[in-house]
């Protein structure tokens, strides 16, 4: 029986493949069941990027499994007023609008400014919140109180916002734009910039809560937020939402929500024509401040880190699952591509070469976005998980193909001849003689590739998958704790990768039978 094991791919890999296939099947079943469940109730889906979006929609500092935020509360009220059930969908900021057009959800509410540029791509509800831009500075830095003061200084803001446009028009500042609010405030606190011009709520929640910073000067300009809908679709839903918003303005619901977050503005009073003073304590604001103040101290930190563990485990599991499935796909497709390039008929050989060159020549991020948001235009609509696996797998397939091609070519020509002379067909010679030898040669490179795939899997966070890196961004930005959480997430990646390094080394030893030893 021992001989049999020599011909099939060694038992170890068979087992490995089977495990991965089972994982894949289980996760698809899970995804399927989830979709079926969602279709029964038909809730209206709305999306936001809750990973780092205080005070709009974010994960409660006390209980990371719970969402909160003034927009989140507003949406709960909106659901009640519409008599509809609303369902939250997490998506990365850059993917929010594409996801809307893809039909992943019907609405986006994420502090989207109602500018003319935005209105070209999406439809807006009536504004639900009006605020203005504020200047935030370091307490011990230059006190820049007006737009004119900013001249000649390094000023930070969020990219593609009205604040950015205001700063661009004021041509004499050194503009620094950021994706994440936390990064902008980090740089201000560390002295890399001298001030930030940013939307009122962000200035308040990030600037006023940081002892090193303060919000200064008068409000600048006017910023209106609206709920976004896919362009030219969902007019009926938009009407219903507008009606509910109007009711919420009249019955004081909106007022109360904003007061709870201490975000009521004179502009809002003007908009709603509601100049009353309600007796509502800013409970949400107080809770947030209290939670932030309690963030010092090792015991509290430790407790919080322990609280992160379930989330990290979940994210690590997703990272692992995506990576494993992608690697299986990459190995299979890569081998097929390599064989086609070497032995296929001319048109297929040409196609395989083109594929490899195109995939290797374009960024993985573009490929991920293209497969998830681009392909649906051709009727190929993949779940986020599948899209992640396919894009990572097909990307790595190109690299594996080159790897295998080198391996196949380094198997001596005489091996193929000997097999043919023994009356094997070309296919049999490849299958039993050439490929097994090539496989042993490329094992070490494949291991390295898997480790980098594990890390590249962080890119699937742009298609709504909350894996390790996404979790790091969320946790670190809600606590301004890049260090501790960074160590934790880094450790998680290492722990994920280590078993595979060891496994590969074992397999290498097992496969590198005495024949690889030179006398």
């Amino acid at each position, binding site marked *: 029986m021992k001989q*049999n094991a020599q011909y099939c791919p060694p038992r170890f890999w068979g087992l490995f493949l089977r495990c991965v296939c089972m994982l894949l099947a289980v996760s698809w079943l899970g995804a399927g069941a989830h979709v079926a469940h969602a279709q029964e109730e038909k809730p209206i889906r709305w999306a936001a990027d809750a990973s780092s979006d205080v005070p709009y929609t974010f994960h409660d500092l006390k209980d990371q499994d719970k969402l909160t935020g003034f927009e989140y509360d507003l949406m709960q009220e909106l659901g009640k007023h519409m008599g509809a059930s609303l369902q939250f969908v997490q998506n990365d900021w850059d993917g929010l609008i594409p996801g809307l057009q893809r039909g992943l959800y019907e609405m986006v509410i994420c502090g989207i400014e109602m500018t003319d540029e935005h209105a070209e791509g999406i439809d807006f509800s009536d504004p639900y919140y009006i605020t203005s831009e504020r200047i935030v500075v370091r307490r011990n830095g230059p006190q820049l109180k007006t737009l004119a003061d900013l001249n000649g200084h390094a000023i930070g803001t969020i990219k593609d916002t009205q604040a950015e446009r205001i700063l661009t028009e004021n041509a004499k500042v050194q503009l620094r734009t950021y994706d994440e609010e936390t990064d902008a405030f980090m740089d201000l606190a560390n002295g890399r910039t001298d001030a930030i011009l940013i939307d009122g709520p962000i200035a308040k929640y990030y600037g006023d809560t940081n002892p090193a910073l303060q919000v200064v000067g008068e409000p600048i300009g006017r910023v209106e937020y609206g709920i976004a809908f896919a362009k030219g679709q969902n007019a009926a839903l938009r009407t219903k939402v507008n009606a509910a918003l109007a009711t919420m303005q009249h019955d004081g619901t909106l007022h109360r929500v904003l007061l709870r977050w201490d975000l009521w503005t004179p502009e809002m009073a003007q908009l709603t024509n509601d100049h009353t003073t309600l007796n509502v304590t800013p409970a949400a604001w107080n809770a947030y401040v209290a939670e932030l103040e309690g963030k010092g101290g090792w015991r509290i930190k430790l407790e919080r880190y322990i609280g992160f563990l379930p989330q990290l485990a979940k994210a690590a599991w997703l990272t692992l699952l995506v990576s494993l499935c992608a690697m299986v796909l990459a190995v299979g497709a890569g081998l097929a591509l390599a064989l086609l390039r070497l032995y296929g008929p001319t048109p297929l050989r040409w196609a395989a070469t083109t594929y490899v060159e195109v995939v290797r020549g374009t960024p993985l991020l573009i490929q991920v976005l293209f497969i998830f948001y681009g392909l649906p235009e051709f009727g190929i609509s993949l779940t986020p998980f599948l899209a992640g696996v396919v894009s990572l797998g097909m990307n790595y397939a190109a690299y594996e193909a080159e790897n295998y091609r080198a391996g196949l070519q380094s198997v001596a020509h005489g091996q193929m001849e000997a097999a043919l002379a*023994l009356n094997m067909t070309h296919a049999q010679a490849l299958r039993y003689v050439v490929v097994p030898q090539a496989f042993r040669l490329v094992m070490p490179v494949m291991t390295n590739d898997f480790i980098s795939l594990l890390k590249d899997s962080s890119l699937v966070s742009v298609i709504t998958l909350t894996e390790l890196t996404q979790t790091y961004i969320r946790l670190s930005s809600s606590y301004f704790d890049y260090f501790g959480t960074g160590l934790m997430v880094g450790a998680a990646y290492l722990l994920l990768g280590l078993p595979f390094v060891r496994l590969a080394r074992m397999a290498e030893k097992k496969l590198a039978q005495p024949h690889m030893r030179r006398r």
Partner: protein
Amino acid sequence: MEDPVVLSAEHLHKNFGEGDVLCGVSMQVRKGELVSIIGPSGCGKSTFLRCLNFLEIPDSGKITAMGVTIERKDAVWRRADEHMAHRLRTHVGMVFQSFNLFPHLTVLDNVLLAPRVVKGEGGEVERAEAMALLEKVGLARVAQRYPVSLSGGQQQRAAIARALAMRPEIMLYDEPTSALDPIVAEEVLGVMRTLDDEGMTQIIVTHDMRFAQVASDTIVYMDGGHIVESGPPEVLCVNPAHEQTRRFLRTLL
């Protein structure tokens, strides 16, 4: 009564693009015959041998082996031709100068792979047969070792056992002892002599004149893509008809 012809080549031509390597070579081999093909390097003898089992595809000519005929009429090598070559190879085994054992398999598995893959025979019977073959070439003790741990002579004998496992009627040897020192080469030649005694038809491309002289039924002298002359060793070596042959033999002996 003469033995029947089991292999015939007629007017084989081969050109690799730099002049003709084979210029209309014809040859007939009878059952049980041991034919040695000799000649200077680059005379086309290896190419001729490789054409006999279509590892090299002749440009024109006709080959019949054990009743399987392939005739090259035009430049196109068709699927049907590949099919016929496959059938022809069931009767013809081959051994290479560089052994070409499969390094990822043990000696026994090297012998068993082709029967298993091609014929689907992988049972205890074939295993016993394979062991018997290894016994015959004196390698039963190293059946579970990997090729790299074997000496050159052992590797070449394993390669012969591997070819024999497909039960060919004709064996081709492409300079089987050129990579071996004379003492080790003797092990390999001994196996070939045993096979000759058992009635195997064998065609050997070789530089070993001593073996060719002692063991061959027929020696074929090739030069410049032609068969210059052929005949039994006692004639060809002692009294060759051509000056070319004489000169070649003189340089060797």
